[in-house]
């Protein structure tokens, strides 16, 4: 049983080593849709910057907000930057 565990750990290590070798050789396939879109369009980082600035401006203007008003979408809402 112990031997099998050792073999299991070794196989796991080999698998991770293989994944790392792929990533090191830049041969890993980009399957993540967001990463793939960022790869095709690096300018999309700008969307993040603009959103960040919008968040900051809202954060420092909270005293102007009327109670109960929600300026941004509720949690769980995703703003698609590539729409």
């Amino acid at each position: 049983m112990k031997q099998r565990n050792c073999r299991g750990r070794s196989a796991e290590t080999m698998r991770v080593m293989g994944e790392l070798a792929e990533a090191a050789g830049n041969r890993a396939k980009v399957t993540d849709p967001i990463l793939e879109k960022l790869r095709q369009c690096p300018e999309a980082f700008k969307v993040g910057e603009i959103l960040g600035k919008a968040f900051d401006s809202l954060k420092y203007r909270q005293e102007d907000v009327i109670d109960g008003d929600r300026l941004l979408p509720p949690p769980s809402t995703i703003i698609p930057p590539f729409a």
Partner: protein
Amino acid sequence: MIGLPVTVSIPQLKGIRWRYCSRWDEGPAATLGMSLLRLGICRASDWSGGAVDFVERGFGRFCRQSGAVEAKKVWVGDLRIADYLFDLTEQERNQIEAGREDATQQLFLIADYEAAASIPIGATLAHLEAEDELLPAAFYHILTANLYKCMRVYDYLDAQEHAEMWMEDMSDEELEACVYRKVEIEIPESIREHSKKVTHAKARGLLEQARPRSSAVRQLIRYTLEMDGCGKGHAHAWPGHLTEKDVPGIGDWLMDAESSRPGCLITWYEGDAINACFDEEAQHMGENGACQPNVAIPIRLNQSPKKLDQQVMRVFDYAGAMLRSLASAAKVVEIIRELYDEHLRKHRFESRLPAEPGPAGVRDE
């Protein structure tokens, strides 16, 4: 008390990793990750699908095991593995990386401090002197020599240099009124008299042979010797040691960069002349260029696995020694601050002076 709810909400992104790394980050991290896996610093269970996360998990665990949590109680800074010596904005980084054909073949272990930890050492030196007249100089030597191995230390020597520069063109009246003159005057006799006579070996010997009556002094000496043991065999890996072979263009960059931000400020007491000089210098730090990191060690990735592993081992040995040394130093600094606060309380009680205990915290630059 329960505060009002904030009006800004963050969208919850389900099933998506918190951080994404570009394709430029993954390659070098994967090469380093393979080495860390071979060396047993990273484990297969650290793998979450990203090489940067993998390295971060292994490195984080290594730092915690080496005393990072204890060190963080006093030192405000970070130890990181980065692909650049200096900070870049996302835009600058994208521009540089877009012009590069291959992924970078070099990473750096970098240590930097965001604030200088305050070490008001005067009261401690008085306690040491009560035990043996040479102990203050021996203790000061071992403490600063070891701190210098992982940070720039701002102490009376830096203050003297700053003061001399400003006093050069002053008239007699100005000299009489200025704070710079006090830098020299305020140096305790125990340091002025003996510091130049004490070598490292002699200082260590004095600490080892000391049999102090006070338990605080005993602890102080114990942790200082512990710190010296951790730092043995290691020298300060500051960026000035890097050559053009290590980093092309390093000479020009070092010429344009400013000195490192100090990781600590050693004063006789808070608000003294050393403190005044430090405050003046700190106001202008980083104004004329980027500040050099306190520690920078390159890791060359384009070599055989065996050589890479040897190099990574050396770098992690340094990182481990540095963290263990800083953890012991943190205990020393905590005792120094307790002795200082005790001195202030006693002084206030006896003289009725409105002396307030020091914050025993860090002093923002």
